[in-house]
């Protein structure tokens, strides 16, 4: 099947292209214009924008905590319309099927679920298997697990840490490593109610900083492409910008990804003791090229916070709306699910909203900043189109800012920022840079040989509409979306790494599980044949 996308504006920053040209697709790949062959299918895309499929590096779409949130809030996601016959369950609110359908219709073709504890890996992969169209990946959560903390306490050395990290990522079929409030979930089990970078985890005598450094180094030693993905301490606390800046310094010039930085961009100035410190934080990011961040933009609506930062979630149960929450002291991290309503009229929420946009606009290099809402924590991913509009249009921002409490706006620098993202920067932030950060050479660009994940948009005055309903979307060269509507399901892969390690670690872990949990380690294995689709995984090479 030879497909020609004729005469669109190709926006492909990886290959330095922003020009009107043809794009050819054959057998799931992008190819050079073939000589002497006529296309089987031609799509006239003149006047349209042609980009690679978008990649979301941080969105909670599967796993025990996410599923618990679904079950906690049946009243918040009623279905309303029958599903088309070709798309069963696609209208079921917040289902895996709806997740894949909505992502695809926006031109997203790869999404990373960033928080799967090893013991929940099988359920996570079962859920991901039921998300249609898109490719997926998971990050394996470490940093509150007894085995790791014991290794560090006993000073076993970095090689042992790397072997353990590799064994854990391999067993959970993860694409990388996530660390969530390192040591904090464990400290909470010892009744600590606050936990910062240099606080000590009881029983282990380790600081959060030591855990982060060890994991960061292990990821580098193992040549896992995606750097340590860190959810820092003190999320959501006024004045926590100092923690964020200390964490950037703690990276010591080495690669580190900081998740949902908006939640750490808070000062404690003003009458309300709450202010935006985004300008200061953006400056710190601009000065640290080794660091990448994603924003975690909030939007004003009902949502639910889902996080393995159990300590933080417990502390926010009093703010739950509706008033109910789930706190799970799990193996290692666990999780907390706290519903929340972000309101335009709320001072704190208004500052948070501005903080996120300031980070988008004040971090100079679009290769360093990633487009997220920490779905569903800041907002559901369905708000992405509105956020594209906000960062691409100063007028859209001014209009939205005018509706906010002005005493909140005055605690931010947002009104003074004129920057508007262009298509090229959007393509960097949502395509080129995510692929690079995750080590995915086969996507994020439109060069010859790339996977034919392609999104075509109809530019218009209404930017949100443009990004909500892609004109055409191809996944692996298969046309799955026409005019914002998914036409059929197909089943993507879960991307994973397979880092090499000394297999003696597996024997050691087997003994540890038997003694410690009284459960064979194999109980938690993710076996391919248990998953519903054939060949569910695609390996990503470990190399830097």
């Amino acid at each position, binding site marked *: 099947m030879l497909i020609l996308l004729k005469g669109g504006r190709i926006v492909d920053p990886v290959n330095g292209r922003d020009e009107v040209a043809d794009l050819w697709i054959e057998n799931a790949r992008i190819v050079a214009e073939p000589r002497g062959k006529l296309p089987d299918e031609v799509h006239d895309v003149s006047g349209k924008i042609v980009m690679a499929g978008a990649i979301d590096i941080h969105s909670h779409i599967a796993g025990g905590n996410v599923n618990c949130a679904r079950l906690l809030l049946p009243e918040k996601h009623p279905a309303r319309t029958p599903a088309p016959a070709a798309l069963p369950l696609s209208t*079921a609110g917040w289902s895996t099927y709806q997740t894949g359908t909505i992502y695809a219709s926006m031109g997203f073709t790869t999404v990373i679920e960033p928080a799967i504890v090893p013991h929940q890996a*099988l359920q996570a992969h079962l859920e991901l298997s039921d998300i249609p169209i898109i490719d997926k990946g998971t990050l394996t959560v470490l940093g509150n697990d007894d085995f790791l903390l014991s290794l560090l306490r006993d000073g076993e050395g970095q090689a042992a840490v790397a072997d353990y990290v590799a064994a854990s990522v391999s067993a959970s079929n993860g694409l990388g490593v996530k660390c969530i409030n390192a040591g904090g979930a464990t400290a909470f089990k010892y009744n600590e109610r606050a936990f910062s970078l240099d606080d000590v985890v009881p029983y282990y005598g380790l600081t959060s900083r030591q855990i982060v450094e060890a994991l960061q180094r292990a990821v580098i030693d193992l040549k896992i492409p995606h750097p340590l993905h860190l959810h820092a301490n003190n999320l959501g606390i006024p004045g926590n910008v100092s923690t964020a800046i200390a964490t950037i310094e703690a990276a010591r010039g080495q690669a580190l990804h900081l998740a949902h930085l908006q939640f750490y961009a808070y000062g404690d100035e003003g009458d309300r003791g709450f202010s935006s410190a985004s300008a200061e934080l953006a400056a710190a990011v601009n000065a640290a090229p080794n660091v990448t961040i994603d924003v975690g933009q909030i939007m004003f609506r009902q949502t639910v916070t889902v996080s393995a930062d159990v300590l933080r979630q417990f502390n926010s149960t009093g703010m739950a709306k509706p008033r109910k929450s789930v706190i799970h002291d799990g193996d290692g991290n666990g999780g907390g699910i706290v519903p929340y309503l972000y309101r335009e009229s709320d001072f704190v929420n208004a500052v948070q909203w501005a903080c996120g946009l300031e980070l988008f606009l004040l971090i100079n290099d679009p290769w360093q900043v990633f487009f997220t809402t920490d779905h569903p924590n800041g907002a559901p991913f369905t708000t992405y189109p509105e956020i594209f509009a906000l960062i691409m249009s100063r007028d859209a921002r001014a209009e939205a800012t005018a509706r906010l409490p002005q005493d909140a706006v005055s605690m931010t620098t947002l009104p003074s920022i004129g920057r508007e993202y262009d298509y090229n920067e959007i393509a960097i932030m949502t395509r080129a840079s995510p692929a690079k950060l995750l080590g995915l050479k086969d996507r994020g660009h439109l060069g010859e040989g790339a996977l034919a994940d392609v999104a075509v948009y109809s530019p218009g005055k209404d930017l949100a509409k443009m990004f909500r309903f892609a004109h055409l979307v191809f996944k692996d060269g298969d046309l799955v979306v026409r005019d914002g509507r998914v036409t059929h399901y197909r089943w993507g892969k879960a991307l994973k790494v397979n880092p090499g390690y000394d297999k003696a670690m597996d024997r050691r872990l087997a003994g540890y599980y038997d003694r410690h949990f009284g459960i064979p380690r194999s109980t938690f294995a993710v076996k391919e044949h248990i998953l519903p689709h054939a060949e569910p995984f695609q390996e990503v090479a470990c190399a830097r």
Partner: protein
Amino acid sequence: MSEAEIDGKPVSLKAAAERSAEILLSARMPIVAGLGTDVAGARVSISLMERLRGAYDHLQSDRIFADLDVMRQAGLMFTTPSEARLRADVLLFIGNDLTRIWPAMMERLSPGEMPPFDLAHQKRKVLWIAPSRSAAKAEKFPIETLDTTNLHATLASLRARFSGKPINAGKAVLRKLDEFAEVLKNARFGVAVWGGDMLDSLSVEMLYGLITDINKTTRFTGLPLGAENNAGGVLQTSGWMTGFPMRTSFGRGYPEHDSWRFDTNRMIESGEADAALWISSYGREVPSWKKQVPLIALVPPKTKFARVPQVRIEIGQPGIDHDAAEFARETGTIVGRDASHTSEALSVAAVVGQIAQHIGRDA
């Protein structure tokens, strides 16, 4: 190979699947009931009901909803058996049904052992409200017991005494409750363990309130034992596929959840459901309906029915006859189970898949 019958007479599996599809297609409101099956079986069954605009339920929904209704009205704090085993310095057992529900509980939680993660490094304290006398006596470690015939009142009184509020009780009872409350106050990481046979939603909600109160000053959490027949795995699968738990219907072409409306026992007896696919792969459970509807039964060999089902197909057991993913009580997560005695017996997923092949997409 699996045995199949139509109206009690042996037939090929293909014929049984075709007849099953006919029955389900001719129904106005078909249901899947029982749903005692692994994740794969639940997946295909839910998909089948979506296609036929039917409803689905699990044979132990009542037990699931005792906990789930509290969670979605008030909340939940819970932990894993591993955490309880490794960390709990106080175990609060509630109900005489625990070791019957989970025979391996004592072995798994090792209440007599010292919890390795507890800083104080002392023996655990074990409290048991409404204990099973025989189970409590069989253990070699001390257990503080509190008998009651009214669990609602006892849990409410304990919560009141924990917060220093007066209650109307005799001296002996008051002293006992205060002893218990004192242990809870001094717990470092306590775990309350309960089953679904004795505790209804009101008890679970009171207990959650108590746990919430304790967490104002120290750590305490829960370990609900849940139900059998992979109720936990079906709940999770239903959750990600539809957004809702079992007792969900596709009558309007999209999932709607209502734990009363789509209780399939009620739907059958009221005449709302007019054909049933009954699935029980973990044991020989059969429906207890008084009303007769056309019935397709996916059950183990030797299952006894009062009335011969229209279609009966024998199936194997997950984790024994075939590999399966299911919720494991011993870990609190979904795990893969390798078949212990691989056989030719069919899985629910395979049989329902065959039935689905005879049902068009636009049924």
